[in-house]
């Protein structure tokens, strides 16, 4: 067989001529060898279409191998030579009548692969016969052929009544024919989302379940995927299907296992939770999922992405299996990162010590991406498992002591998040953090550090010096850092007004006058006006109590999660996006929903309920507070969630009075010198130039305060300043419940603008 290799190297135009001669030779053997050579060069991507008529001439032969080879060639080139391809039709039609079922099947299979309209017309009659052939091998091949034909000419298939024949094949006595009919119908149904092609009823379900036990592994996948689209009438039917699908969990083919998991996860939704069977099913699901992790790394990756969804939906399934997700140092990086994610999802008070020990181990590995993610994971554990927070913080401090640059930076970013979750608890570590100030060169870490300094300015003696040192290179910093710096200095000023007037003036002028960035400028102006108009309000707003971040930040929004559970095993489950979001030409993809639980007493139980969040549909981003990364979000978050007493709502507390007194002198002088003078303000303002904060707020109120309704973020998309105002307004007026939605949407809009 070495000729093939030689050919691969030395194929030339001269040889085409030679091949032509050989193809037309009288000797059978020579012909066959020539066709083989042609196929061989086709395989490596060479164009041998010039030999089309000569190869087709070899088609009429009794030799099965030669026939197969010619068919192979035809499938590849018929499209480019439609007129010549017609020459082959007669042979095809004749072969469909051949006494040998192998040849009948081969002919109908090949004809379906030739995507030439003229040939398709001749295909109908032979196909009709083959669909009713006495031999199941031919029937199952013909079933697939209907799907092929449908792809070429859908109308023709409908007119010829092939769809009905196909539906009849679901009741065929041979399980492989059933499986192929299901596969073909599913493919066709995808292009007719509203047709009732796969109109499953208990009888047909029963037939599918019977075929499931007997057909090949691939057929089992087709059938299971088809079953997953069925909605059982009640919990009893659901249970009986689950019982018959469960044995598939022990199949050697991981795709079968995952398809079975999909069916079970979906139908489980209908079972009452107090049912014994429900608990048993949960137990049965764990071992096959664990087994998937001992497969090849590619399979592991897909399995892990799916397990990530499963542990979010039903954490109880794998809660005792933490150890199988421990990372081995020679796992491919894509497996390592996924395992880490799942470890955090499974972390609980019971296993946190183990998890932390592992994460610390990972943080000393070689791969930078992995190390970073491990450090972040420690922070996420602290936020998720409150009891472990202290241990996490000390682990992070240990890691900071290693002085490995990227570890330190990553640790500082997560410590910021820990501060957000447990305010006023771990400030003792700030000193250690400050020691590493100089080594921070990544924007995210710098921004996090600046945030910490600003937030705890009153406890850091040299906070002003630290912030000032950042200010020197203000214009070289990234937007993220600039914004944080601005906010931090304003905070510092509000906390220590006497010593930091110059600093705040400097940063405000840098932000408003020297910067081209609209976000920065707008934020600068808002602070400026706030400070100049009503320092008490400024303090209320800027130093307001912030909402705590929580672990839910990383969870997939529940309606989306439910939809993804319906797509377990598919690309959607790998990307964690609904198919409609990325499948090209997805023709009217329907959003899949989990069936409602029928057992009435559970239906209201909140964590498992499938009810969508009010005002959110699956396409909208989850309404959670971004834990990091959203630069403007940070500011907005800072500004919302006021303490119970607000400026407009009653007598100011004594503490606030005191603060005002303190501020009084400093502010007066400030206002006197620069703030108050409108001449300093550039005339070319985007944001409305008004008399002061009051006006701005009026402007806000013109838009109306949405009482209980969801504000479409688009209405304010062009005006980041106004987004800010909305949230300010809301924060002042105690519209707490809406704030988180609004803030998120507007922060995303703003970020969009930054990127433009």
């Amino acid at each position, binding site marked *: *067989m*070495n000729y*093939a*290799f030689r050919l691969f190297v030395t194929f030339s135009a001269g040889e085409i001529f030679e091949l032509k001669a050989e193809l037309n030779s009288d000797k059978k053997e020579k012909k*066959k060898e020539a066709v*083989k050579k042609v196929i061989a060069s086709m395989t490596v*991507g060479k164009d041998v279409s010039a030999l089309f008529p000569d190869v087709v001439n070899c088609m009429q032969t009794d*030799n*099965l*191998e*030669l026939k*197969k*080879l010619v068919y*192979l060639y035809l499938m*590849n080139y018929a*499209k480019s030579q439609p007129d010549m391809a017609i020459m082959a039709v007669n042979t095809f039609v004749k072969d469909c009548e051949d006494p*040998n079922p192998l040849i009948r099947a081969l002919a109908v299979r090949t004809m379906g*692969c030739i*995507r030439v309209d003229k040939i398709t017309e001749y295909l109908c009659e032979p196909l009709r016969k083959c669909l009713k052939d006495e031999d199941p091998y031919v029937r199952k*091949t013909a079933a697939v*052929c209907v799907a092929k034909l449908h792809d070429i000419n859908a109308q023709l298939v409908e007119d010829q009544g092939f769809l009905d024949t196909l539906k009849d094949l679901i009741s065929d006595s041979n*399980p*492989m024919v059933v499986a192929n009919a299901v596969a073909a119908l599913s493919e066709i149904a*995808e292009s007719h989302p509203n047709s009732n092609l796969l109109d499953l009823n208990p009888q047909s379900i029963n037939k599918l379940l019977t075929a499931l036990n*007997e057909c*090949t*592994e*691939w057929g089992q996948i087709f059938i299971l*995927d088809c079953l997953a689209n069925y909605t059982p009438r009640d919990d009893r039917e659901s249970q009986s299907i689950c019982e018959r699908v469960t*044995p598939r969990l*022990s199949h*050697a083919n*991981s*795709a079968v*296992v*995952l398809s079975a998991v999909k069916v079970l996860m979906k139908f489980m939704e209908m079972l009452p939770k107090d049912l014994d069977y429900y608990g048993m099913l949960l137990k049965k699901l764990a*071992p*096959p999922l664990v*087994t998937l992790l*001992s497969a*090849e*790394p*590619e*399979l592991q*990756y897909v399995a892990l992405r799916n397990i990530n969804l499963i542990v979010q939906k039903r954490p109880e399934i794998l809660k005792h299996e933490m*150890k*199988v997700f*421990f990372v*081995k*140092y020679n796992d491919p*990086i*894509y497996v390592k990162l996924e395992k880490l994610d799942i470890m955090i999802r499974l972390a609980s008070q019971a296993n946190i010590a183990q998890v932390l020990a592992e994460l610390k*181990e990972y943080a000393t*590995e070689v791969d930078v991406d992995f190390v970073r993610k491990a450090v972040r994971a420690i922070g996420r554990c602290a936020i998720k498992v409150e009891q472990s927070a202290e241990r996490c913080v000390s682990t992070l401090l240990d890691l900071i002591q290693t002085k490995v640059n990227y570890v330190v930076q990553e640790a500082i970013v997560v410590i910021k998040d820990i501060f957000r979750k447990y305010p006023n608890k771990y400030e003792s570590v700030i000193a250690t953090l400050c020691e590493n100030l100089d080594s921070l060169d990544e924007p995210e870490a710098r921004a996090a550090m600046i945030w910490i300094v600003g937030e705890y300015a009153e406890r850091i003696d040299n906070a002003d010096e630290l912030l000032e040192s950042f200010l020197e290179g203000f214009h070289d910093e990234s937007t993220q850092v600039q914004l944080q710096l601005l906010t931090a200095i304003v905070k510092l000023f509000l906390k220590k007004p006497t010593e930091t007037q110059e600093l705040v003036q400097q940063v405000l002028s840098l932000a408003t006058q020297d910067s081209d960035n609209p976000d920065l400028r707008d934020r600068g102006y808002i602070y400026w006006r706030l400070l100049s108009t009503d320092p008490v309000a400024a303090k209320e707003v800027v130093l307001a109590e912030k909402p705590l971040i929580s672990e839910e930040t990383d969870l997939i929004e529940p309606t989306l999660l439910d939809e993804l559970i319906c797509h377990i*095993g*598919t*690309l*959607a489950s790998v990307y964690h996006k609904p*198919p409609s979001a990325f499948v090209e030409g*997805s023709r009217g993809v329907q959003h899949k929903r989990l069936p409602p639980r029928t057992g009435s007493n559970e239906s209201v139980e909140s964590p498992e309920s499938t009810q969508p969040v009010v005002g959110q549909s699956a396409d909208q981003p989850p309404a959670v507070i971004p834990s990091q990364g959203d630069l403007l979000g940070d500011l907005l978050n800072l500004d919302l969630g006021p303490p119970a007493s607000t400026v407009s709502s009653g007598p100011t507390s004594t503490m606030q009075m005191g603060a005002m007194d303190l501020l009084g002198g400093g502010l007066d002088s400030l206002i006197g010198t620069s703030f108050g003078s409108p001449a300093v303000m550039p005339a070319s303002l985007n944001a409305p130039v008004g008399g002061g904060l009051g006006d701005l707020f009026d402007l806000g109120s013109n838009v109306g305060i949405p009482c209980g309704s969801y504000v479409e973020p688009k209405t304010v998309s062009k005006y980041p300043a106004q987004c800010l105002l909305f949230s300010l307004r809301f924060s002042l007026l105690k519209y707490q419940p809406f704030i988180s939605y609004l803030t998120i949407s507007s922060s995303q809009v703003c970020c969009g603008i930054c990127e433009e």
Partner: protein
Amino acid sequence: MINTMIHSLFLINSTADIFLEKHWKSVVSRSVCDYFFEAFSKASDPENVPPVIPTPHHYLISIFWEKTFFVAVIQNEVSPLFVIEFLHRVAETFQDYFGECSETSIKDNLVIVYELLEEMLDNGFPLATESNILKELIRPPTILRSVVNTITGSSNVGNMLPSGQLSSIPWRRAGVKYSNNEAYFDVIEEIDAIIDKSGSTVFAEIQGVIDACIKLTGMPDLTLSFMNPRLLDDVSFHPCVRFKRWESERVLSFIPPDGTFRLMSYHVSSQNLVAIPVYVKHNISFRESGASGRFDVTIGPKQTMGKTVEGIVVTVHLPKVVLNTDLTSTHGNYTFDPVTKILVWDIGKMNPQKLPNLKGTLSMQSGVPKPEENPSLNIQLRIQQLAISGLKVNRLDMYGEKYKPFKGVKYVTKAGKFQVRT
């Protein structure tokens, strides 16, 4: 959602050259692989190329098999596991047919490869993937056959309908005949473990498989029973195994495929059942100031059930700053590759009286901070005639045929992903 699964398949070698393409629908341009090459060049190691890569119009799903990438081009929402499983099946089939699945063997057999691919997939639907059936359709190449074929002019394509494909036992071909009837089973267990610095077990589990080589005439119906089937609670079976009987009686009842196949795989994860056969004493340290480090590793037997541990190989991936090693070993040889920084110590059989030790100094790049990461030791070993989980085959019975087959069971335990952290 099922759909036309694989549009096209490209085979790519580890120097990123496409050496075979096959299109089941229309021809997809080779340029689609550029996205794969981009991911390939970003990955530090071929093994780290992500298995699913999105491109503007397609998805590329790939596996890496013995230095060859099998890249499938997908256009619709499909089950990636389906595709990956199928690709593995293709690679296994090539291995089965050509003895190895390499670029050379594939190029030497282009036509058979093409015929096989055509039989295995029809318009995206898997057709015949069982090796028994494929071999009836397309005979594997042998030197003898190619000589015979040239003389007699016969071909290597079967002329018969693959009889097994439609019966209720699609995995077995009909009319099997042997003069010596034999049934062999290999119980192979691999220990996956992570041992921490102090020598305690962080995680350990056993991945077991039972591979069978069955050469029996006719339609034998076999029943394999175990002494201690309770051990097996997480199993997956070859489709031939009757699940109902396993559920009710805990025996494996099956009509086997002809030839070699994996009968079942299982997984023992409860920690107290997993014995760790060796312990490792290690002291690897890097000096803060000087440009050197110490390396001292000793291996000794732990829970070996009285058997000899052999085939021991220790692999260490040393930090980048290590330039060279100066070590002496009491047993076996060691090699150090200064480019990849991989130290391999091939010990062979363990003598419990005199424990193998490898000791010496590491020379390191001077003027750089000492490495933070601690190298992990990767250990391979083998113990013959022992299934470390304690699994034992009780008996094998045959029904449906009259002759007396020759039966045999072999046990072996190996280290799988066995790592010791230092």
